[in-house]
């Protein structure tokens, strides 16, 4: 019998429609696989009862011929999305045991389209990190291993659990959020596709906030098409989010096969960094070559303020985070550690509730917003942000999309880069510009490095032009014919 966990979304939907297998069988296959993959620590909480109940309802709809667009598709939900009646932690001790009475807009939409929730996936605490090592619930292990070492690798972050789950076939789809690269970087590290749509495309309502002006929900899948299915269900205007866009949602899966012929591709020279490994540049060159051969026009462009993006990001994001995380004060929900008075209760609750990386960002954020430093840091960073937006605006007068590497390296070992936060922050160097400009970006696997680890390419599009992004990524996916599987999946099959 075929491995139900290895199917694509289209194959799974067709299989259920044809009664080859039921939604409950598909879900059970995933729940079994999850049990065997617990050492990856991809899930903070598994929700088998909910999954089976939802799957049974999907089966009823299939029987009645009223199946929904994602009916019965087993899905991992990043534990940053509030789920009604189901613990939501943001991977933080301060929210351990917190059970929302409400459902985030994105998960509501997914469930309304028939998606089945397998559980809440692990992440960096409050989505702050690039390795999924800051989670209070422990790090996530990448299902890939290098061919020269047995060391466990990071899945990337912050949506490490979601990416690892999809790569390890213990979720067919998963949700992510991307504030500085938190979908694209783990997608690249785990050899899968991941799209962060334009800021405003998906509602932020019910998603635990990290940096409000940068946060955006998105989708992971093993193929571009799978991502397109999920993105279609997640997207749309929400009156409960003042920053969500009042725009119709295109039929993404139907629009991805048009190829790239005649499209203009921007290659930004500022993304050629001296310290970038040759293999990364090589895969980028390869991508350019595939596009050229397919009839796309390659245009050299300049995004001159790129080098300021990362430092500016690490001012804006912590500034917003320092304020967004003020509500975790031990008064109404979550962890409270009583002190002798109010101030001490605040201090103790927050000192015990937050991990080091979160504390570091709260301190940095409070500092850059404080009197006397606000102009020099926060205002300056906002100016940089505007310049970065202008860079892209000018570029898009000449090109239809931009191609860059997704990450400056392949997955690294757990524990690496932990000694110096700056080293860790450099992981986001190719991805943060997208967040600073509010653009859609997608990472798609394009090949393996010499250690046998996946490398991704990033496609960046115009605001709300996810269609072109998906289309270009679908082309790269075909051109690269990327079919490598992580050792975890290969070993399981063997």
């Amino acid at each position, binding site marked *: 019998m075929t491995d139900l966990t290895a199917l694509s979304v289209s194959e799974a939907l067709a299989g259920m429609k044809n009664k080859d297998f039921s939604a409950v069988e598909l879900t059970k296959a995933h729940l079994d696989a999850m049990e065997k993959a617990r050492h990856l620590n991809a899930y903070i909480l598994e929700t088998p009862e909910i999954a089976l109940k939802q799957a049974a309802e999907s089966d009823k709809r299939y029987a009645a011929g009223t199946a929904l667009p994602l009916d019965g598709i087993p899905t991992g939900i990043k534990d940053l999305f*509030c789920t009604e009646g189901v613990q939501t932690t943001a991977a933080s001790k301060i929210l351990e045991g917190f059970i929302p*009475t*409400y459902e985030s807009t994105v998960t509501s939409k997914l469930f309304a389209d028939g998606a089945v929730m397998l559980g809440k996936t692990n992440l960096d605490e409050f989505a702050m990190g690039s390795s999924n090592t800051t989670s209070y619930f422990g790090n996530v292990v990448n299902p890939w291993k290098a061919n020269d070492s047995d060391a466990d690798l990071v899945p990337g972050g912050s949506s490490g659990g979601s990416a690892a789950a999809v790569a390890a076939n213990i979720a067919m789809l998963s949700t992510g959020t991307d504030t500085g690269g938190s979908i694209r970087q783990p997608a690249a590290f785990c050899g899968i596709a991941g799209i962060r749509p334009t800021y405003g495309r998906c509602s932020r309502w019910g998603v635990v*906030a990290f940096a*409000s002006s940068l946060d955006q929900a998105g989708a992971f899948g093993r193929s571009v098409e799978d991502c397109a299915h999920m993105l279609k269900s997640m997207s749309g205007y929400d009156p409960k989010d*003042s920053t969500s866009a009042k725009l119709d949602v295109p039929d993404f899966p139907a629009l991805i096969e048009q190829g790239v012929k005649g499209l203009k591709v921007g290659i930004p020279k500022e993304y050629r960094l001296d310290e970038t490994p040759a293999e990364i540049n090589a895969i980028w060159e390869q991508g350019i070559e595939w596009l050229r051969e397919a009839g796309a026009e390659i245009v050299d462009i300049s995004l001159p303020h790129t080098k300021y993006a990362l430092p500016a990001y690490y001012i804006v994001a912590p500034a917003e985070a320092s*304020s967004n995380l003020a509500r975790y*004060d031990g008064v*109404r929900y979550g962890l409270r550690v009583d002190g002798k008075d109010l101030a001490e209760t605040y201090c103790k609750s927050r000192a015990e509730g937050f991990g080091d990386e979160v504390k570091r960002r709260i301190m940095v954020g409070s500092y850059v917003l404080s009197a006397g430093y606000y102009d020099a840091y926060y205002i300056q960073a906002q100016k940089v942000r505007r310049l970065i937006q202008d860079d892209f605006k000018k570029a898009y007068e000449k090109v239809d999309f931009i191609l860059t590497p997704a990450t400056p390296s392949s997955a690294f070992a757990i524990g690496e880069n932990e000694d110096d936060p700056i080293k860790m922050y450099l992981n986001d160097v190719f991805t943060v510009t997208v967040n600073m400009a509010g653009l859609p970006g997608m990472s798609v696997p394009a090949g393996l490095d010499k250690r046998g680890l996946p490398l991704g390419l990033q496609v960046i599009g115009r605001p709300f032009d996810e269609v072109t992004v998906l289309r270009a990524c679908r082309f790269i996916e075909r051109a690269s014919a990327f079919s490598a599987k992580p050792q975890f999946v290969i070993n399981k099959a063997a």
Partner: protein
Amino acid sequence: MAEIIRGNTGDWEMVIGLEVHAQAITESKLFSGAATTFGAAPNTQVSLVDAAMPGMLPVLNMKSVEQAVRTGLGLNSKINLYSVFERKNYFYPDLPQGYQISQYLHPIVGEGEIEIDLPNGEVKKIGITRLHLEQDAGKSIHDQHPTKSYVDLNRSGNTLMEIVSEPDLRDGIEVGAYLTKLRMILRYLGTCDGNMDEGSMRADVNISVRKVGDSKLGTRCEIKNVNSIKAAQAAIDYESRRQIEILEDGGSIDQETRLWDPAHNVTRSMRSKEDAHDYRYFPDPDLLPLVLEQGYVDDIKKTLPELPDEKKHRFMQNYGLGAYDASVLISSRSRADYFETVANDRDAKLAANWVINELLGILNKDGKTIEESPISSENLGKLVGLIEDNTISGRIAKDVFAEMYASGKDPEVIVEEQGLKQVTDTGAIEALVDKVIAENPDKVEQYKSGKDKLFGFFVGQVMKESQGKANPQMVNELLKNKLS
């Protein structure tokens, strides 16, 4: 003239500016759909947003915006078509988000001015610096448990309009007049109920002192917890003298926030400038800048009611009233409307007299507002009409008024039932006059020999004979003729 405080080293004046927090009348909160009714059971009007649950987002209530624009227009102020909500960050249990969403660098309303009416009849212009929108905090309750504090979030997220004045006020009387006028304008506009005792209008007083003639401002203190006009005046009296005493003793004023203690009539230091919070204001990334169209503002302008000052001037011009009477009548919209019904097509001055001296007099005594008056405006108007067309005399009218106040009856019915119509028949009055003259020959003698004052006696006797119903003017004329 503003109050001058005579010190040991010379004359001092006060420089005062007010920050008034007015809760806007809206059905739901500034950024959430929760209700805003005062006095509901604790924590029953709290949405997920107000309680700052994870992942919740604010959505601006356009009714709050409308009320702010309306108020700005009523304060003759500039409406800023571009304004920005910012976060003011600080920790307190009644502030669930850990920040208050407020406006800082870009308020919705800019500079303007209002006129205040001083008791001596003087009118003074007071500058308005700005009005901005912000969230109210919840309420901490410290007296319900020996060691714990309780928090009621019903108020959390309500719409506040913070109205900041220029430091144009010079004493407690001016502050009282300013607060009275501001409250009147807000109530006319229907943007705030102005109930200071329910906390829907609260004032922080910024006060400094300086020698008369100095142009430089002294160091100011901010006084919080001022919950009535009386409290504001008492706090100013105390604080100005405290500051003068320090300065005259060679000391200097610390810029600080002080708390008014109404139990002991003193201000107490709450926190000094050194302890002042660094609020780390920054634009709220959950909310886009608020951009209004001029047409939107113009449409609101068209719906503004006649405001107190306009009404006052119209009453003076159209009804020929004095400034004092006019300002008494316009002090609330319902009072002004009541008066206008009474005065409709009648002698306006007479109407004003009856409303102010008789009706407001007795309502005041009984602690009632004009809305609670047992006499309807239509009936009081009829009474004025009956006096005006000589159906009854002013003297009889007072009795009718008393009966109306007691029973709420129509004055025409009362006059009819009790036969109180004035006697204007010359023959009937003449008969009474003759009778009185005949019965008092000695008084007639004395009058004719020069005791003019006795004329009043004759008038009184005739009126008595007529049971008060004789037309006094006719009585006068007939008596004069007969006695000459």
